[in-house]
């Protein structure tokens, strides 16, 4: 079996990937994986690490949770993310905020309008109703149980499965509050994130919970990470708004204290 290649698997060693992102040396690549529809992956990455997600065939849906590495009670807070930035539709230039008033990751580029901060992920009950099965070990796994398994392997549990964001699906809110899934994705669409703290990124690739198709339609997702430097003080993303400026000030103060503690490890 050794040496068998399939479409959805990690590249090993990661630096062996044959098509590194533009401007990236293969030797700087920390992780490269194509995640199957119905699968998940999880990376623990240091501050400054770049994380690229690619909707390879145009129908992936990347549910994303972010926890602080080593101090996992601090995590992505979707409500604070949209409230503090006065914007329910995050996109290029948006910050992902933790529940401690810090920037946990930044969105350097994303397909326009394709980050959903409303709908979370699927659950067992919903998948049973739509697909006839929703078990994590079945043909149409639900996102919540995949998140729980991934976090469980890090010593966390179901309490740590907070509301997530979804990449590569567009959700819009009508004036009366009605939600609509309005976009089906573009093959090759990319999103680029930067870790602004040492973080654990957990990604499930499952159909969007508002996706009414009954055939569990979801295509592979490519996840590539490479080394990078922490965001410098004069980076435009830090100075774009007063809220961003203060969030990065909080982050910098915490990282400085953390360094004296010997890192989050």
């Amino acid at each position, binding site marked *: 079996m050794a040496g068998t290649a399939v479409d959805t698997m990690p590249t090993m060693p990661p630096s062996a990937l044959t098509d590194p992102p533009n401007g990236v040396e293969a030797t700087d690549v920390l992780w490269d994986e194509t995640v199957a529809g119905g699968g998940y992956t999880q990376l623990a990455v240091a501050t400054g690490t770049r994380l690229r997600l690619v909707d390879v065939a145009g129908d992936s849906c990347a549910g994303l949770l972010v926890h602080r590495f080593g101090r996992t009670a601090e995590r992505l807070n979707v409500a604070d993310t949209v409230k503090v930035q006065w914007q329910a539709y995050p996109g290029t230039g948006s910050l992902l905020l933790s529940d*401690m008033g810090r920037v946990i990751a930044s969105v350097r580029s994303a397909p326009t309008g394709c980050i959903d901060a409303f709908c979370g992920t699927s659950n067992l009950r919903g998948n049973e109703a739509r697909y006839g099965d929703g078990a994590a070990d079945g043909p149409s796994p639900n996102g919540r149980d995949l998140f729980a398994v991934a976090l469980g392997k890090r010593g966390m549990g179901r309490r740590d499965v907070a509301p997530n964001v979804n990449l590569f699906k567009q959700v819009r809110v009508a004036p009366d509050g009605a939600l609509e899934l309005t976009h089906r994705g573009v093959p090759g669409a990319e999103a680029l994130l930067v870790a602004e703290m040492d973080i654990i990124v957990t990604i499930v690739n499952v159909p969007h919970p508002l996706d009414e198709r009954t055939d569990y339609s979801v295509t592979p997702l490519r996840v590539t990470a490479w080394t990078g430097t922490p965001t410098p003080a004069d980076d435009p993303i830090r100075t774009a708004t007063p809220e961003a400026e203060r969030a990065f000030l909080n982050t910098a103060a915490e990282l400085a204290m953390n360094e004296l503690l010997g890192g989050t490890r």
Partner: protein
Amino acid sequence: MTTVDRELGTQAMTGTIVRDDIIRARAPWSAVVAAGEVLRLIDLGGNQAIDCLLYSADDPVERYSAPDTFVAQGNVYLTAGTVLRTTEGRPLMTILDSTCARHDTLGGACSKESNTLRYGHHTYDQHACVENFVQEHLRHDLGKRDITSNINWFMNVPVEQDGTLGIVDGISAPGLWVDVRAELDTLVIISNCPQINNPCNGFDPTPVRAVVRRPS
């Protein structure tokens, strides 16, 4: 004992009053509302946001989920008829009726930390909802990891066409109320919001009233 409370306006509450509490301004509160019982929250002073988290009392790992509620009803606003869902998609509580047109569950809870982002570091010492939540959670063997996207009763957070989202002037008024029926035994944890930097409390936090009744 069947009670009709005349102070509560035209929509009298019938049935047995299980508890009737005034939650003072800025304070936390919690109670288990048994399946079938109805919790009425009354905005006594008007424009007072009540931040609220809900847990299955039997298994608090299963808890209120704003996303699962959105998906099930296909809408982001909480109104009469909204079924508040758990993380597993099960009905936890149902909004039976409300004299306030709608309620929010997008805006989250204020915290000392997020206040520094929204208003500046001079607000760091001010009291905030997450302080109340942690205090109340610890009484129930829960903690910060259990704080998730909450409900904001009587708060108005419209989503504009371009995604602009802000906490705007309240749509509530003195004496408005919401009735919520427990479908499962539900641990209700409340922070009577102490925020003074935006209009959610009319810049003046006030007491609210929480009444639990068992319908006859």
